[in-house]
């Protein structure tokens, strides 16, 4: 089942002629972890902005559940359907960890649950203690902030989880824990997890790995069982060649 579909998406930066994508078509399946790799400046974060409804493509159509993103309320889409983990985290720094998560639930309009309890559960899931949950974001380490950002993205139980380098500041154990969470969200809960990464550990849990270069996306041959009929990179390239 497809959660998100891109049809002939093109994108160029406003006021410039710099083309980031040209006629990109892609389907992101529910219940799968999809990773996107590519060198810096290739447009990976821009792609995530388009998928999360923060930006609009120059042309083409992005559909969620069969509905065109440009025709639905993108505020509601971001608040209820998508959990975004930004590379730069984008947490409210003068608020506490728990406040950040509860605010996300409030914005999504979730009702009928004890928000505080759910927030504590999510924080515990990513390894943040109750004591730290009450600390202001600026008083927490980079790794802890990253985990709070992940917990916030899951707070409103979104269908889509979009993550930009979600494990960049994490130690190995925490990274493994977070990747297990992503895997479980996709495989057990049927969520669509899309991750932009440079980390081999992250691509290792992916069901699909796509490479982005010169405005073109192609499927890396690491998952031969899922690549049939898709734009498999030609010639096939190793993951290392997509890194810096």
């Amino acid at each position, binding site marked *: 089942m497809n959660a998100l579909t891109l049809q002939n998406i093109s994108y160029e930066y406003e006021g410039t002629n710099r083309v980031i994508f040209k006629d990109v078509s892609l389907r992101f399946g529910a219940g799968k972890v999809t990773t996107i790799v590519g060198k810096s400046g290739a447009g990976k974060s821009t792609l995530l902005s388009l998928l999360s409804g923060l930006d609009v493509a120059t042309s083409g159509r992005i559909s969620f559940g069969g509905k065109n993103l440009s025709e639905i309320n993108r505020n509601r889409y971001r608040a209820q359907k998508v959990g975004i983990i930004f590379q*730069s985290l*984008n947490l409210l720094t003068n608020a506490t960890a728990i406040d950040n998560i509860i605010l996300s639930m409030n914005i999504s309009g979730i009702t009928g649950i004890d928000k505080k309890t759910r927030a504590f559960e999510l924080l515990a899931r990513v390894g943040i203690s109750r004591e730290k949950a009450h600390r202001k974001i600026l008083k927490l380490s980079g790794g802890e902030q990253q985990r709070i950002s992940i917990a916030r993205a899951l707070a409103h139980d979104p269908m889509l989880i979009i993550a930009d380098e979600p494990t960049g500041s994490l130690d190995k154990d925490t990274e493994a824990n977070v990747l297990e969470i992503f895997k479980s969200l996709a495989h057990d809960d049927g969520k669509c997890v899309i991750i932009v990464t440079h980390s081999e550990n992250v691509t290792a849990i992916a069901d699909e790995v796509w490479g982005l270069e010169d405005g073109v996306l192609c499927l890396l041959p690491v998952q031969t069982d899922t690549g049939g009929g898709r734009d498999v990179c030609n010639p096939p390239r190793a993951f290392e060649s997509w890194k810096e």
Partner: protein
Amino acid sequence: MYVIRHALLNLGKNKGRNILLGVIIFAVITAAFVTLAIFNTTGIVIQETRYTLGRMVRVAPRQIVYGEASVSFEQFLSFAESEYVHEADIRESRTSINGIEAIYYLKQPEMLTNFEAELRSRGLPDTYSVVSEELSFENVTGNLENLHNLSLTFLVIVLILGAFIMVLLSAISIRERKYEVGVLRAMGMKKKKVALGLWIEIITITCICFALGMGAGTMLSQPISDVIMTGQADSINVNISVNAITVMGILGISILLASITGFISVSWINKCEPIKILTERN
């Protein structure tokens, strides 16, 4: 509901900026309160003085013309029976030309013309003048008028300067909060809710400053008025009072200030896209 809670929590989180904003709003409200209280009170005193003097009519000969019939004491008394007269003060006086001082207090200052016509028909010679004391109004209330006009000028200056500072401060404040607005919008918060949150913050600050400004203004109005009136010749003792008009005026000014800042916030938020804010920051 969560927007209100978030806004109120934000008040405590951004103490420095909010205190600065509060101090300026407080200063503007206090200054406006003092000037408005002085303006209104002096206005009332001037009006009352004008009314009192306008009702006070003096009937006296312009000059003694020998051979002309003069008005007797009894005649002056009979004039007091006019329907236009509220009360009269007729007495013998060594200082007046005819030896009689006749002052009539009319029911209304506007009755002067009718009253004079009645006196003329009842035999008051043309050599007698029927003059309201309003003519001496300028002498009595000159300083008060100056204070009244000065307070109005000061009020206008305070409002223009206050509005200018508020606009400037709001613009700086909203730019400082650009990131926060970007994050909230990226999380899917609607523009109007972000704007509502900012507006609740400024309204809360304004309400606190309104209460404090009222207290400070009440304490300061009388001493400031006394200082201004001190040393002025023919000064009238003005007791500055806070009436409903002053309170309503300050409330209006407070709402105006909050609206100015709110308008700046809303117009800015309407223009900004979260992706641009977050990209610029990063």
